[in-house]
C-alpha cells in the first residue's frame, strides 16, 4: 500500500497539475473583463491555499506533536521543517503568480492590500524559521527552538490576519479582491478550479514527503555514520 502510494503520488500530482494547466489554458473560456489573465485563477488561489493553510497548518501541528512529551520525536521536527521549506516555495510562488496577475489587472506588481501584506509577513516568518534552523545546535535543542517558533508564528497568523484586514479596510474599502468570481463562473471553470486545489495539494504532499524522506535518510546515514564515528572515536584513545 505504502509502496503503491510512493510510486503513484508524484506522477499523479504531476498529471493533475498538467491536466489543470491544460484545462485552464485551452479548454476554459477567457473572462469578459480580464481576458486570458483570468486563467491564473487556476494556479494562484490553489497555490496560496497550500502555502497559507496546508503548509503552516502542518508545521504548527507537527510542532505541537513534537513539544508534547508523549509524542516527542525528531520525526515531527523533520516533518515541520519539510512543511516550512515547501511552504516557503509556495508562498513565494503565491507572490509571483499574484504579482503577474496584479500587473495587468491593477497596473502594479504590488500594492499594500491586506492579503498581500499578510502574505509577505508570513513569508518573512517562514524565512525566520529557516534562519533559526541554520543556527548550529544539537538536534533536539534545535527541534525545540524551531517547534516553539513555529507554534508562536502559527498563533500569530490569525492575529496578523485580522489586524491587517482591519488595518486596511478601515482606511479604504476592499478595492482589490472585490472581483467576485462566483456569478460569472462557468461550469468548466468551477471544475478546473476544484481540480487545481486538489492538484496543488497533492503536489505539496509529494514534495513534503520527498523532503521528509531526504531528512530521514540523512539521519539514518547519520546513524550509520555514528557507528563508524564511535569506533573511530574509541580508536583515538587506543592510539594515544
Amino acid at each position, binding site marked *: 500500500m505504502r509502496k503503491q502510494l510512493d510510486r503513484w503520488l508524484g506522477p499523479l500530482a504531476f498529471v493533475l497539475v498538467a491536466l489543470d494547466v491544460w484545462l485552464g489554458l485551452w479548454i476554459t473560456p477567457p473572462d469578459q473583463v480580464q481576458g486570458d489573465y483570468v486563467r491564473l485563477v487556476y494556479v494562484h488561489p490553489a497555490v496560496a491555499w497550500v502555502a497559507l493553510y496546508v503548509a503552516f497548518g502542518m508545521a504548527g501541528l507537527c510542532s505541537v506533536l513534537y*513539544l508534547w512529551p508523549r509524542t516527542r520525536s525528531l520525526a515531527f521536527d523533520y516533518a515541520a521543517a519539510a512543511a516550512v521549506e515547501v511552504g516557503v516555495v509556495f508562498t513565494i510562488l503565491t507572490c509571483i503568480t499574484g504579482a503577474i496577475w496584479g500587473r495587468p489587472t491593477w497596473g502594479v506588481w504590488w500594492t499594500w492590500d491586506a492579503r498581500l501584506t499578510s502574505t509577505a*509577513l508570513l513569508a*518573512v*516568518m517562514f*524565512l*525566520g524559521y529557516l*534562519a*533559526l534552523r541554520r*543556527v548550529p*545546535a*544539537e538536534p*533536539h*535543542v534545535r527541534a*525545540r*527552538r524551531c*517547534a*516553539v*517558533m513555529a*507554534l*508562536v*508564528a502559527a*498563533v*500569530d497568523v490569525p*492575529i*496578523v490576519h*485580522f*489586524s*491587517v484586514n*482591519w*488595518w486596511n479596510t*478601515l482606511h479604504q474599502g476592499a478595492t482589490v479582491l472585490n472581483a467576485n468570481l462566483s456569478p460569472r463562473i462557468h461550469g468548466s471553470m468551477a471544475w478546473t478550479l476544484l481540480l487545481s486545489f486538489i492538484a496543488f495539494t497533492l503536489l505539496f504532499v509529494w514534495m513534503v514527503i520527498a523532503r521528509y524522506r531526504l531528512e530521514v535518510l540523512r539521519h539514518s546515514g547519520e546513524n550509520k555514520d555514528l557507528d563508524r564515528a564511535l569506533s573511530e572515536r574509541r580508536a583515538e584513545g587506543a592510539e594515544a
Partner: protein
Amino acid sequence: MFRDAALVAGRDLRIELRSRVVLWQVLPFSVLALLLFAFAFGPSQARLVQSAPGLFWLALLFSTVLFAQRSRALEGSPATREAARLLGLDPAGVFLGKTVALFLELVVLEVLLVVGLLLLFHVVVVSWLVLIAACLLAALGLASASVLYGALSGEARIRSTLLPVLLLPILAPVLIAGVRSFQAAIKDGAGLSGRWLGVLAVFSVVYTGLGIALYGPLEEN
C-alpha cells in the same frame, strides 16, 4: 513559580541598575529613532503630525528589539546560563520574572516617548485613557514576546542579528493596533479604538500564556 519570578526579576533589575545600560544606551536610542524618522519624513509639519503615531510605534518596536537583546544579555555567558540551569528554577517563573522586569523597563520607555511626542511633534491627546491602556497592553505583549524569542535565539554573537529577524514580524500586529489606537486617542475616536485595544490585549494574553507554557521545553536545553 511566583517566588522564582520575583527572584529572577530582582536579578535582572539589579544588574540593570548596576550597569545602567538601558538608561544610557537603549533610551537614547529610542529618542534618536524618533528624530531620525522625523528627518526621513520631515520637514513638512503637517505630515509629521499625521505620522506621529507611526513614528512612536516604530521607535517603540525597534527599541523593543534592543531591550530584548539586553534582557537576554543579562543572563551572561553560556557558562553562566548553564549554571543557572543547574539551579532548579521553575521555567515558568523565570519567564514571568524576566517579562515583569522587561515590562517595567518598557513602561519607562513609553513614558519617555510619549513626552517626546508631545514636545517634538505637537500632538494633542484627546483620550488619555486609550493611550495609557494601549501603552500598558503593548508593553506586556512586547515584553513577553521578547523574552520568549530571546530564549530562542541562542548565543550572543548570533543573537544580535538573528533576534531582530525573528521578533519583528511577530510584533507587526502590535505595530498596527498601536498605531490605530493612537490615532483614536489623538482624534478621540474612542469608539473605534476598542477593537484595536482588543488586538493588543489578545496579543499580550496569548504571548504570556505561550511563554509560561513553552519556556520550560525551550530552556530544557
